[in-house]
């Protein structure tokens, strides 16, 4: 009798325990999410990644230094799931129309902080300043882009269009912020360096981007960028150098998006059309990193579908605002990796191009002009089956 009881309790217990395993949610496939690290991280690098992840998600409040002027209160609020951003957290920059620099620095330029903590008035765009809206790009695989050598980027550039394909591509030559040291083998032109981050490629590296983001996007001053956007005065740091280093490391070691449906015939056909239609002339299908102290970034080949160069994109995309030496109608080729996962971070819909104005991949392609005019026309001339294939390929990225 007793034995029977014990037995039934044990059976019941096992039943429950087995059910437990079945009832717990499993991880999504690795290629379905942007989160995750590059390969071959050491345990110390993984630990730093996790610290950076936490700092990236940290929410600032008035008490912990937010503002007084700000655009949003955490990195993650604008870079949800490390993917492309949503129009509700776009930011606006104003006041520069050519390489002579920003004329509105004393009036709150270059970035509009349209929010303020209570008791302060947010900024307005000064009259006479032209403006552009920027929607957040995805944050994945940036370590690879950072580790490409300047020489490789320049090799893709063709300022005088010597190959006569209608596509030139030039770097945005920028002045180096005083807290930055140039990378070894940096190539300069008239004392200026190649910018590679941001939609205008106005930012040198991920450290530069992180320091700017703290200061300009959240009103968090650091030892590197101590001037508050409201008072214009130097304040005590509100984020430590160590935290900034962790966030930079996090950005460097976030994995690159993994392509899906690689073997599908539609996707394969789409990839051929991508090259045939000259998309690859700007959205370079393959690049390699130079030497890196992080093993997973050291001499690696990757497929970001960008050349990190600026291209004339025509009148419709000219917002009459620029950074560095770039023209107002020039934009950095957006990496296309992760494009198929964009809607999972943009709230179920896509918001593409620099300001999120394109609501579908096709709309984005049809907005291409300038150097990309021919390429767009080729796309427009495709049969609907071919268009479908090309888009399936882009969605697999």
């Amino acid at each position, binding site marked *: 009798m007793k034995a029977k009881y014990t037995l039934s*309790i*044990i059976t019941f*217990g*096992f039943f*429950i*325990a*087995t059910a*437990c*395993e079945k*009832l*717990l*949610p*499993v*991880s*999504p496939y690795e290629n379905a999410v942007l989160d995750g690290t590059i390969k071959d991280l050491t345990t110390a690098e993984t630990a730093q990644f996790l610290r950076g992840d936490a700092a990236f998600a940290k*929410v600032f*409040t*008035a*008490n*912990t230094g*937010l503002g007084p002027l*700000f655009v*949003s*209160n*955490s990195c993650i*609020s604008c870079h*949800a*799931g490390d993917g492309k951003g*949503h*129009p*509700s*957290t*776009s930011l606006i920059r104003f006041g520069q129309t050519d390489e002579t620099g920003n004329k509105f620095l004393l009036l709150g330029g270059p970035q509009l902080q*349209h*929010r303020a*903590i*209570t*008791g302060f008035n*947010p900024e307005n765009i000064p009259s006479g300043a032209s403006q552009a809206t920027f929607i957040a790009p995805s944050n994945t695989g940036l370590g690879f882009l950072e580790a490409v050598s300047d020489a490789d980027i320049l090799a893709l550039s063709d300022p005088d269009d010597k190959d006569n394909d209608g596509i030139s591509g030039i770097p945005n030559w920028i002045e180096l912020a005083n807290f930055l040291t140039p990378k070894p083998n940096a190539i300069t032109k008239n004392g200026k360096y190649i910018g590679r981050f941001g939609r205008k490629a106005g930012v040198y590296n991920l450290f530069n981007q992180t320091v700017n983001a703290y200061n300009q996007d959240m009103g968090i001053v650091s030892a590197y960028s101590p001037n508050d956007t409201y008072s214009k005065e130097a304040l005590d740091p509100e984020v430590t150098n160590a935290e900034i280093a962790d966030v930079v490391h996090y950005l460097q070691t976030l994995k690159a998006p993994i392509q899906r449906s690689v073997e599908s015939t539609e996707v394969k056909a789409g990839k051929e059309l991508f090259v045939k239609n000259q998309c690859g002339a700007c959205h370079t299908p393959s690049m390699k990193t130079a030497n890196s102290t992080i093993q997973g970034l050291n001499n690696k080949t990757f497929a970001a579908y960008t050349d990190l160069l600026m291209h004339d994109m025509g009148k419709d995309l000219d917002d009459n605002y620029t950074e560095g030496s770039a023209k107002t109608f020039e934009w950095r080729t957006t990496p296309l990796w992760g494009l198929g996962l964009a809607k*999972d*971070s*943009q*709230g*179920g*819909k896509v*918001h593409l191009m620099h300001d999120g104005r394109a609501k579908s991949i096709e709309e984005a392609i049809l907005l291409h002009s300038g150097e990309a005019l021919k390429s767009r026309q080729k796309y427009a001339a495709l049969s609907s089956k071919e268009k479908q294939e090309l888009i399936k390929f882009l969605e697999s990225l």
Partner: protein
Amino acid sequence: MKKTYLFWLFLLGLTQNIFAQIDTTLFRRKPILDSTKMNIDAVYSRPFLQVGRTPLGVGGYAEMNTNFGITDGIGEGFSFQMRRMTLFLGGSLHQKIKFMSEIEFEDGTKEINIEFAAIDFQFNNLFNFRGGIIMNPIGAFNQNHDGPKWEFSDRPISATQMLPATFSNVGMGFYGKKYSKQWVFAYEAYLTNGFDETIIDNGNSRTSLPTAKANKNRFEESSNGQALFTGKIAIRNRKIGEFGLSYMGGVYNKFQDDGFILAPKRALNVFAIDFNTTIKKTKTSIITEWAWVNVDLPNNYAVQYGSKQSGGFVDIVQPVYKKPLLGFPNSTFNIACRIERVDWNVGKFTETGDKIYDEVISIMPAISWRPIPSTVIRFNYRIQKQWDLLGNPPSKTGVFQLGVSSYF
């Protein structure tokens, strides 16, 4: 490995005799009050030990549980949680003057709170005065939150993460009841200190009334020199059940300092309805509460902070096996389920016109055993989906909890 581990803990939970024997002859146990009581009576409808012939009553409850949860395949492993131990200490100074207090030790001794410490002057049924640290009677859970009364280790999400569970404040007010044959009518109305600006500027990055609980200064002074009003009316019909309607509102921001106006007054308004009943025939009990929060925000405020929130829960509890067992004549097994939902940001993005999310839904089936009515051993499984602000694919969480909660 994991399976056997879970299994042993399960057995342990079933068989463990957690209450040591004590000599109870010194104490006279006042019986737990009957089920016709209303939420308003919860403060007094608790088991007390009366010490000798003194007018002093002591009591309390403790609850702990094991927790094993996984979100999207990633878990923090297994842990034990000592949720809280709460002490009640009360007494009558006079037939019509009573004192009652409730002191809570949360998560070990991480937090110690006086949740309730008030003197009641009971003039007559309809008219009583209460002053001290008062539990704001918004919704039903805030009033009637003792762990052993519930079949779930977790408190409802809407009560803890939207409404401030066990939100208490210094203040005073009136309460009373009116009886007629089948009906009881009850009211409560208090003025207390209240909220502050952290509800719209906090580490949760969402409008969060519970953040104001962290401000312990509220027991000393109002954050803005304004009182918070909380009022509730409830009716109970012996056959139908109890229905409550409550409101809490006031100015939450610091709009002036030293006589200077800093900002316009910004108000918050909370409405809640609650209902509970027991279906006679099946003995099924249903407890539900839904609430709506409305907060005036500064213009152009960060979109993460919503001006409207809504949420609530429904608990259904069904006794399934009520027979003497292992020496407990009133032993009862229940199956139960809680369904809950919270939307922390009701509204649409101005930029896109799309719905703002920041939402959670959760379903939590449970099996519980009550060897005696005031002690419960409960096994809960929660499956939950949570959406970020933008409504991206939700994170899915599954949690198992085995817990004990008991008055002592």
